[in-house]
């Protein structure tokens, strides 16, 4: 059987429309104790609002980075976009069509060819019992894109080369590779079906600095060559500065700031963004004594009322503890902060 041509993208909308559009995405998890315990110990139902109304857009060919600390929901957003979770509320559009409707339907399943994911842990993201050739070829086989053996082998070799590995590596097992090389194999697998959108969940956090540099460079080159769009999740703002075009800062499931990279780093508006930037240990400030902000991220099961950041915020007032701020545009930047809105910051 001859190789089928790579799947064509769904009908391309006019240039102005962004490739990805998330509208009020939310995901709640029920983490209550089992029914019997709840009845006997009179425990309440507990809901975890991992993602609580997140909206953003990503233009084709650009990279949006989502940053935040643990519990902010950025990984959940990533999994919502690739269909690993269903949204509890809201929706997201891929090239104009409702992605989750597509994920669920039989015919729309093909959307998975266009959206792929790279994971954080290079040791757990490849099946230790499969050879590299099978791992990289799996998406091609699953979607029936190439079935002839020689063509499949050729394509696998091509993909391995594009990430800087040798086509001869295809017969090896994952444990024969280092962390950085495994991450490259993950990238090769993700690119097998020529996707347009790649969700990257902390792809270099588990790698050493020199290896991280190699992988980030490859990702940037591939983006340039193939016009890929990335959603890049990270907690490392220095890496984010290097790879992103736009940056979204998340805190306890909400977007607090969304701005083009230059604007965010030059002039962070939201108090949490400022705190994050201030808190990063900087290479060139040897012996610099920072003034770290007090407090820790609150328990996501019991978020503060109003603005989630108000207990730690130096600029909080009464309104902040009762009314939840909305993401508003201001000079090309979107910020969810009463103090900024009121001009106090």
């Amino acid at each position, binding site marked *: 059987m001859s190789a089928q041509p790579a799947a064509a993208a769904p009908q391309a909308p006019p240039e102005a429309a962004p490739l990805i559009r998330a509208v009020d995405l939310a995901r709640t998890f029920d983490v209550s104790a089992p029914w019997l315990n709840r009845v006997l110990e009179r425990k309440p139902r507990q809901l975890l609002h991992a993602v609580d109304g997140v909206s953003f857009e990503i233009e084709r060919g650009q990279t949006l980075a989502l940053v935040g*600390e*643990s519990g902010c929901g950025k990984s959940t957003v990533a999994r919502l976009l690739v269909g690993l979770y269903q949204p509890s509320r809201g929706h997201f559009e891929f090239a104009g069509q409702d992605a989750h409707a597509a994920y669920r339907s039989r015919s729309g399943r093909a959307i998975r060819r266009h959206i792929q994911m790279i994971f954080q842990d290079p040791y757990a993201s490849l099946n230790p019992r499969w050879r590299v050739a099978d791992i990289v070829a799996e998406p091609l086989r699953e979607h029936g894109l190439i079935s002839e053996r020689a063509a499949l082998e050729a394509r696998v070799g091509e993909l391995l080369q594009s990430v800087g590995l040798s086509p001869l590596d295809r017969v090896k097992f994952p444990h024969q590779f*280092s*962390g*950085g*090389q495994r991450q490259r194999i993950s990238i090769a697998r993700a690119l097998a079906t020529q996707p347009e959108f790649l969700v990257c969940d902390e792809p270099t956090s588990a790698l*050493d*600095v*020199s*290896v*991280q*540099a*190699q992988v*980030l*460079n490859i990702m*940037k080159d591939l983006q340039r060559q193939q016009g890929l769009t990335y959603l890049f999740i990270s*907690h*490392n*703002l*220095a*890496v984010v*500065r*290097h790879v992103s075009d736009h940056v979204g800062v998340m805190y306890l499931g909400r977007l607090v700031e969304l701005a083009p990279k230059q604007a965010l*780093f030059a002039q962070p508006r939201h108090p949490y963004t400022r*705190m*994050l*930037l201030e*808190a*990063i*240990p*900087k*290479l*060139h*400030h*040897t*012996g*610099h*004594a*920072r003034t*770290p*902000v*007090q407090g*820790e*991220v609150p328990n996501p099961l019991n978020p503060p009322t109003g603005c989630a950041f108000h207990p730690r915020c130096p600029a909080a007032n009464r309104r902040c503890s009762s009314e939840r701020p909305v993401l508003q545009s201001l000079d090309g930047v979107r910020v969810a902060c009463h103090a900024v809105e009121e001009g106090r910051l």
Partner: protein
Amino acid sequence: MSLLQVQNLVVEFPSRHGTLRALDQLSFEIAPGEILGVVGESGAGKSLTGAAIIGLLEPPGRIASGQILLEGERIDNLPPDQMRRIRGRRIGAIFQDPLTSLNPLYSIGRQLIETITTHLPLTHAQARQRAIELLQETGIPAAQERIDHYPHQFSGGMRQRVVIALALAAEPKLIVADEPTTALDVSIQAQIINLLKSVCKKHGAAVMLITHDMGVIAETCDRVAVMYAGRIAEIGPVRDVIHAAAHPYTQGLMRCIPDIEVERQNLHQIDGAMPRLNAIPPGCAFNPRCPQVFARCHQERPELMPAATTQAACWLNASPTSPARAAALPEAQP
């Protein structure tokens, strides 16, 4: 006099396939009260160095040769019960995961008091008072009540503070901290680093801070040792190692760290990877990846030698008038 002296330490792992040398002729010193950073990538041997000093090498790993001297006395060849007395009393330890560093079944007060009474001649009441003071010092609010709480009732950052209190409980002279902030959020990291620095200065304890995060090193340490493939590549004052490194590996490493202040098109990368323990090339371990390699690098292994402001294990720094360099083959293209 140095607080800690490590001299030509060799740690080996005998295995069926042969003996693997994980640490190869390691030598360095820590002065009293100083903070020495030990930085390196995975597999460089930094955690092993910490484990060897505390005496917690996992068998079959063992110290094959070399000496570790604490305040002039050898501690590497002590029997286990004597080593146990030194651990905790003169050397404290902080590990990466605050979750597993504390026993979940005992209250933190009990763990603190147990450590204090084991090493110091205090009564239970005195030990308890001291424990409360330590908790207050490390920033645990309401220490009087929280001393009886269990580890699961604390958040990650709080737990790491308790671990720091535990490490300081018996007034050790040296604290070995192995990746103390890696498992914590960025904002908590900043707090813990500051705490470690201030509390150790206050108690006059020296710190050996092991981490892979150069930013943390830059802000905390006085001196730093850069490890590569079980050896020290460079050691010196932190500002000099970061800004004026003499070893090509250190130079490359500093350049590939993405900097939040400066933007670059492509990150500088060091091609290749750190060699595995059973495949370390002869001569300088870095020679396959070094942009300035020459003939001697493949033949002789360089020892730490003085460079401009640091000490680097690199033949580029061999003194031009030394007979060693004169005897070297002329520089050849790799």
